[in-house]
């Protein structure tokens, strides 16, 4: 579904991504684990075109989308739940869900609209007319998820969704993500939270200094003490 090959990205003069390649398939959650500052967010930003990659290709369903402006990438079916949630604070909950572009959906994957997003996150329905800036952290995370879903994406990019959330809410979030994948979405989950990634993903990549240094199933990674110690500080 989403295919990234040999991606190189710079911020100013610093070379952040050194040839990252990965593939996310439909009905799959692929997690990228790594410590702070290894380039995880830059990876997401390169895919959504907040940062322009200096080299490499990004393909969505076989079509090259490298270097497209962000809004066109989103309109082709990639949605982002950004780090720090970034809900539109001065907009009401309902308005946050009204403004995203709606992609057309084809057959198999579940189609989303504002009502189904409210069904998935009932708290948001109760707060529909409140300003998003006044929501709690967990509620803002739900809103950021709902906002990404109403655009009916084929690929969902999640950048540290568990950050700052209580363990119970993180578990709920993990279940929601797994369900989304089962319904046909391709999910790229960027995490620092090892257990969250382990419990949610079918495949895990470990990132260090702008490179993918390890690829395996969650079970293998859980048993690989060397990788965990070297790259995840565990």
């Amino acid at each position, binding site marked *: 579904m989403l295919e990234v090959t040999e991606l190189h990205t710079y911020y100013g003069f610093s070379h952040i991504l050194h040839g990252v390649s990965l593939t996310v398939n439909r009905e799959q959650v692929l997690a990228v684990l790594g410590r702070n500052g290894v380039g995880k967010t830059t990876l997401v930003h390169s895919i959504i075109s907040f940062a322009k990659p200096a080299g490499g290709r990004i393909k969505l369903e076989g079509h090259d989308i490298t270097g497209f402006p962000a809004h066109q990438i989103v309109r082709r079916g990639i949605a982002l739940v950004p780090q720090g949630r970034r809900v539109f604070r001065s*907009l009401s909950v309902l308005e946050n869900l009204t403004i995203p572009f709606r992609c057309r959906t084809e057959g198999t994957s579940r189609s989303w609209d504002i009502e189904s997003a409210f069904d998935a996150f009932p708290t948001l329905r109760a707060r529909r007319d409140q300003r998003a800036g006044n929501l709690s952290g967990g509620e803002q995370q739900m809103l950021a998820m709902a906002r990404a879903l109403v655009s009916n994406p084929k690929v969902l990019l999640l950048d540290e969704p568990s950050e700052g959330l209580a363990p119970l809410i993180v578990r709920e979030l993990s279940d929601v993500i797994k369900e989304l994948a089962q319904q046909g979405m391709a999910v790229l989950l960027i995490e620092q939270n090892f257990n969250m990634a382990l419990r949610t993903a079918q495949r895990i990549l470990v990132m260090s200094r702008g490179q993918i240094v390890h690829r395996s199933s969650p079970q293998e990674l859980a048993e690989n003490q060397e990788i965990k110690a070297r790259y995840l500080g565990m």
Partner: protein
Amino acid sequence: MEFWIIQSLNALSFAMLLFLLCAGLSLIFGLMNILNLAHGSCYLVGAYTALSVIAWSDNFFLGLVSGSVAAGAVGFVLQRFLLQRIYGRRLLQVLLTFGCMFILGDLAIIIWGADPTTLRKPEGLTGAVDLGGIIFPKYRLFVIAVGITIGIALWLFQEKTKWGAILRAGVDDEQMARAVGINVPALFTVVFILGTALTGLSGVLGGPFVGVYPGVDLEVLLLAVVVIIVGGLGSMKGAFFGSLIVASLDNFGKALFPELAMFTIFAPMAIILAVKPTGLWGRVL
């Protein structure tokens, strides 16, 4: 008593003119962080275009429309072909828009000459009306009505429509707006045209009592900047109430202490700048 009522109405009509002048400047700054110093030029272009169109067609309302369109066209060219190339570079934006102000001012002198003129008031709005013993110019009441109507329309547009929500989302977090599929570059162009067209409208409306002359562009720019410092940048509410405050200070200052005319505006501005740099209703930048 009569003095106070008349002066208040004067202040209100001037405030509405200022509001139309500043709404665009504030809108543009709020969304794209551009302080457009050629803003006064849009006022000038609007007023002069209306001058020609009214002389040709003898229709004030045609002048109103053509003045707004001409100013909007200037805004379009400025944003699409010049400012878009230097997006995010504040110093270049200031220099570019300031330079454009001089170029447009000189072009206006070449086309319309350097003699000060005023626009003719529309048929039916000349003369005064008797408001229970108080005689007040009809045209100024018309300006108050237009200002309030456009103020309410802008507020409804911003707060109650999907387009308004998209605009506010762009102000909140422009990058994230791109990431929900909003075509932000197109939004910028549309808002720039809308903002400059409003300014052109204020130029036509102000034409009959402020007048049109070389240098009016810099004068209205200065007033607009004062309003925006008092009210706060990037907020429509700030532009509205800032205009009310500045127009009242200006009007009552000139009526009560004519020898302190400039002082009554700029002293409060300096105080607000020192005490609350974001302006009374501004957001934190």
